[in-house]
């Protein structure tokens, strides 16, 4: 099935993504887009140096980024940090996402990946960001990748499953499309571009192709799958370009935190600064947003 998908012409896809990046989003449209983008942020910290204290600070930011500001969609942490985050987010409505399945490489036995997933869910994560086995995918062992996703989905129970394709390691856009279909077929609730741990993370063309995939999947199955670009999206301007792409590719139905997320850490502060600028008419400067 995967090799029967229409190919992707690299030049054309990049041209389309670039064209959508020229849309000019101003005034009221910009204000709405910024608030929507804030509500779509998966505020992320995935460092070896993370501590419960650091995670609690991030959760406080997630619940109320600033006065009169909607909360972000979720906080995204390593499994070991889930208990602290669960505690800090209790009752806030902010989702708790945990990476799992031997993030970021995915190079571990399946039992370890499943145990990783179950532990995160048991500790309070209601969203799991898994990685696919890129090695198996590139070797053409699609069935193995598929079965792993199915198994992880089962281990998730009620938790939502985001499948990280790590597009920077897939080689070309045809593979991005194939991996997207593979993940959706195996039961993904979201498809996500990247771990943020390899040099090439989310790019507009990759996200475009994934948005086309969820659009086509919906046309075939009636099921809407979410998309999450992650890594490298740092400015409001970039975030708005992604929203334009969602709007004009998958369609406005996808413009909700239930179906589109930004995996980001520094993006939120830029969104807050732009938000303040639109409200007050001037830049207050980086000292007026919190570094968490």
């Amino acid at each position: 099935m995967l090799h029967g998908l229409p190919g992707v012409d690299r030049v054309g896809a990049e041209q389309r993504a670039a064209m959508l990046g020229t849309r000019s989003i101003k005034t009221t449209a910009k204000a709405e887009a910024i608030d929507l983008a804030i509500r779509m942020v998966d505020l992320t910290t995935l460092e070896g140096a993370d501590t419960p204290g650091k995670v609690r600070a991030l959760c406080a930011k997630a619940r109320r980024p600033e006065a009169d500001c909607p909360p972000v969609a979720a906080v995204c942490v390593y499994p070991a940090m889930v208990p602290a985050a669960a505690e800090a987010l209790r009752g806030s409505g902010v989702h708790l996402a945990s990476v799992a399945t031997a993030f970021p490489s995915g190079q571990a036995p399946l039992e370890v990946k499943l145990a990783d997933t179950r532990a995160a869910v048991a500790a309070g994560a209601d969203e799991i960001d898994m990685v696919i086995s890129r090695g198996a995918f590139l070797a053409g062992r699609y069935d193995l990748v598929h079965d792993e996703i199915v198994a992880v989905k089962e281990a998730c129970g009620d938790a939502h499953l985001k499948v990280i394709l790590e597009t920077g390691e897939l080689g070309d856009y045809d593979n991005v499309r194939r991996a997207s279909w593979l993940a959706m077929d195996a039961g993904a609730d979201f498809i996500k571009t990247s771990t943020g741990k390899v040099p090439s993370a989310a790019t507009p063309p990759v996200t475009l192709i994934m948005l086309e995939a969820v659009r086509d999947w919906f046309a075939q199955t009636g099921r809407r799958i979410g998309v999450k670009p992650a890594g490298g999206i740092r400015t409001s301007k970039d975030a708005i370009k992604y929203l334009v792409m969602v709007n004009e590719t998958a369609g406005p139905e996808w413009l909700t935190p239930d179906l589109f997320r930004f995996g980001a850490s520094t993006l939120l502060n830029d969104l807050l600064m732009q938000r303040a600028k639109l409200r007050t008419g001037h830049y207050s400067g980086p000292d007026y947003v919190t570094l968490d």
Partner: protein
Amino acid sequence: MFEYAPAPESRSIVDLAPSYGLFIDGEFAAPADGGVFKTVNPATEEVLSEVSVAGPADVDRAVAAARRAFAGWSALPGAARAKYLYRIARIVQERSRELAVLESLDNGKPIREARDVDLPLVAAHFFYYAGWADKLAYAGYGTTPLGVVGQVIPWNFPLLMLAWKIAPALATGNTVVLKPAETTPLSALFFADVCRQAELPPGVVNIVTGAGDTGRTLVEHPDVNKVAFTGSTEVGRQIARSVAGTGKRVTLELGGKAANIVFDDAPIDQAVEGIVNGIFFNQGHVCCAGSRLLVQENVYDEVLDSLKRRMAQLRVGDPLDKNTDIGAINSSVQLERVRALAAVGEQEGERWSPPCELPGQGFWFAPTIFTGVSQTHRIAREEVFGPVLAVLTFRTPAEAVEKANNTPYGLSAGIWSEKGSRILAVADKLRAGVVWANTFNRFDPASPFGGYKESGYGREGGRHGLEAYLA
């Protein structure tokens, strides 16, 4: 729903005079018999400015000025001519926002296209031919210029067509009298100012405005050595007739009815973009527009559904809004022509347009496709020169080639397939001057452009483009 707030480009950057004279011998001058006409913004029908009508006496003065300038200009070393062309290219870049807004105002095209396509290509063309000016000996067409060149250009890409004409003519040492289209004279008049700013010697470039009569006077002027024309096949025929036997050299770039062929192994999403870009770019006012879509039958439904979904997203409206995809039809005359052919199409095939609200003022036509069209239908044979696409199907590559070539035109064609061998085999059989593979309406100054059959003769662009201006 994500509504984009209006994002209009400011028009204050363009300083329009209430009236313009003719640019002859480095000066703006009133026409001898004082004739004027108005040029309007096709998006609003607002009068932009009054422009002079060049009569026979004016054309005579312009040709004489070009003749006087020819001796000095052609005697300059190529590197010295290049210096002026580089200067013009840089000034165009510096003034590109102003020129883009002006082009959008006078033509009706979206500012996004004027800004991202027209103006960068204008500058690129001057840069490109500036590079050739001192290397003519290596081009293989001799180094002797022809003399005074009479050039008549259309309204679809006013400044870009001017660049296509003037850049190679000047690089090769010719001098120019150019007549812009009646409905879009302003950017050529602003270009005259660019020439002055670049300190181009007087008379090397002369701009005479007016309608068909002015063009005819220029083309038939006995002291013009070469005629270059871009426009309709009908006028091209008249020109060919009028210069027959005079010894004048002619190049003609005329109409087209390009086939855009989508095979079942095409990258469908990009093909749909290419179809949209092929026919709706510049409101379909493109001689090489992909106005006949040929889709392989086994992917017809998939392609059509995607195309309709994509067309529903096209943003039709204020050309100066940076988010507009489709602007205004250039003139009421053209709008009538598009409407008339669409009415014919309606009797032949099934008409479809996405729901879109057209502005009340100005000249507007919704993007339209006709399905169920056959080769025999007029909508599949005649050039509409508007945002109207005829959709046909085919079963085999041989049938695709046969249908694509079954037209009196032969300017361009497109092939969509992920299979390299198929692209090469089909491209080889298509009788069209330009064949695009997995893209459409892509232009580059280094690539020659021109037609087969009734799409004209001669090539513009690239090394080949020098031939038309050298003896």
